[in-house]
């Protein structure tokens, strides 16, 4: 099913909408956002420089640093009396990033999430359990309002107390799960511990996952525990842009459909800033075309992906962004090699004998970087000989070497040793500057 007619417009129609919105946006921001006006003036640009949709490439980028510099409310374009909601990012790498919404922004947000939820299989018949942490984080309320708009019955169970979560899931017959991929995995793990088989004892048939990258390897692992018929999709967004709602996968799992009438997406070369053609990998840059409280022009997401404009089998014509290859923020440079944690995940998952949890530790030994990967032994695959463990260690080591070209120390540990996560997983410890 397709939720909105905006998802099936022709390229000309989409671009016409985008151009009209962009023109208005640039005028409004030049007028009301001093930080933006200054950048325009410095570049010798006037708001009327936008004649065609390609002219967006003339406009300056916006960075996360600017949002921090304008903490908390200096970037808002409307007075506080028009603001009805405030959210903030966790701020693990500095001051939190604050975002705010008008009534219209919230409506647009719910509309965007509704489209992605429907693309991921949601209907009004679903009982949707939202296992995202409710609070300042945009994920939970974003999915909540979107699914409410679709008409699903919402169980706002949040995170924590996983056994209780499973009780709701089983007794209420939840059909749709909203969680991070790592929490979805954790829920399945706890289910097993208390004797619930997610395939038989739960009614889940849809997983709308987000807020951290879902690798294909992780999707395969999740299918193993939740069953092959569960439709597991991921959706994309970030608090700066709106929260979840920017893009999401449909049942064909061939990239995430972007809500283009609200978000104009480009992919750039992160070094030169130049826009890359369709199909080329680079940094995703997004313009929020019609947010009232906090529109952003050419926001540098630091996420790496590429775009495909071809029509999807689902009938949507909106551009698809490939599932992220990684976030530039997450990239590790180890002995001169660029390493994305997602590559390590892809290497580890699927190896027989270890569980789905892992931790990547990078340390300094003299002038050299040491990469250690901690994994847990799968108790069901235990054997009676040390040789088995040694072989397992070698298998992992060889696979990492093959994928990254790096030697890693592998530490196989007891089950349940590594930390578990209910929200975004933190699987990397970089101790080199500690």
């Amino acid at each position: 099913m397709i939720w909105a007619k905006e998802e099936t417009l022709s390229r000309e129609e989409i671009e016409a909408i985008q151009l009209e919105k962009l023109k208005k946006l640039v005028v409004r921001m030049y007028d009301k956002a001093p930080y933006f006006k200054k950048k325009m003036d410095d570049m010798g640009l006037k708001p009327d420089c936008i004649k065609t949709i390609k002219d967006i490439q003339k406009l300056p980028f916006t960075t996360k640093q600017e949002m921090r510099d304008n903490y908390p409310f200096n970037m808002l374009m409307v007075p506080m009396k028009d603001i009805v909601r405030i959210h903030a990012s966790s701020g693990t790498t500095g001051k939190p990033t604050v975002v705010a919404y008008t009534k219209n922004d919230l409506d647009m947000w719910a509309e965007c999430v509704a489209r992605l939820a429907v693309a991921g299989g949601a209907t009004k018949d679903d009982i949707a359990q939202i296992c995202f942490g409710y609070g300042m984080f945009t994920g939970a309320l974003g999915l909540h309002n979107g699914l409410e708009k679709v008409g699903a019955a919402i169980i706002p169970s949040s995170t924590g107390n996983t056994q209780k979560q499973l009780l709701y899931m089983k007794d209420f017959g939840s059909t749709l799960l909203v969680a991070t991929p790592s929490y979805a995995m954790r829920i399945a793990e706890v289910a097993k511990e208390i004797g619930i088989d997610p395939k038989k004892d739960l009614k889940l048939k849809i997983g709308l996952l987000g807020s951290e990258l879902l690798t294909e390897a992780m999707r395969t692992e999740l299918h193993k525990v939740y069953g092959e018929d569960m439709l597991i999709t991921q959706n994309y967004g970030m608090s700066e842009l709106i929260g979840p709602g920017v893009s999401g996968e449909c049942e064909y799992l061939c990239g995430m459909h972007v809500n283009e009438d609200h978000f104009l997406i480009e992919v750039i070369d992160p070094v030169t800033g130049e826009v890359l053609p369709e199909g080329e990998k680079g940094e995703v840059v997004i313009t929020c075309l019609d947010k009232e409280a906090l529109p952003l022009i050419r926001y540098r997401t630091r996420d790496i992906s590429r775009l495909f404009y071809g029509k999807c089998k689902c009938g949507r014509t909106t551009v698809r962004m490939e599932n992220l290859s990684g976030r530039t923020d997450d990239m590790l440079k180890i002995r001169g090699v660029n390493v994305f944690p997602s590559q390590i995940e892809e290497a580890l998952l699927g190896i027989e004998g270890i569980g789905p949890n892992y931790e990547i530790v990078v340390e300094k030994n003299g002038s050299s970087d040491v990469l250690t990967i901690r994994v847990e032994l799968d108790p069901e695959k235990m054997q009676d000989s040390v040789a088995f463990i040694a072989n397992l260690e070698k298998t992992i080591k060889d696979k990492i070497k093959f994928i990254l070209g790096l030697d890693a120390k592998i530490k196989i540990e007891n089950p349940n040793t590594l930390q578990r996560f209910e929200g975004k997983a933190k699987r990397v410890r970089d101790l080199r500057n500690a």
Partner: protein
Amino acid sequence: MFVKQLCVFIENKHGKFQELTNVFAEYGINMISLSLSDSTAYGVARLIVSDTDKAQKALAANGFASVVNDIMAIKLDNKLGELNKLIKELNEGGIDVQYAYSLTSGKEAAILLKTLDDKKAEKIIAKNHSFYTEEEIYNL
């Protein structure tokens, strides 16, 4: 004839072995025989215990990975040359030993033996030796 052997994964880390013995102490499980192999990073403890099922559940609840398998427990007279005879018979029968550990209690002795072909080994051994049953070995 086989008895149940419990194999437990142990990281080669300070305190890990005591964590294991602690689980047995806490849950009232008696270790009848134990063999602990060593390697740089990991070890596998092989044990004959008084209640294998209970032990395995207790271990799982305490974060240990373990597996239960069958092993031959062969009766030996506790005197010089007995084990040598047994191994010689196996050698002549073309059987290679994978690992072994022993158990003695007063005059009674047993060798716990894993070979690369237990079925064939069992037939060879049965000609001149007898095996402990599970019940017998738990009461040693």
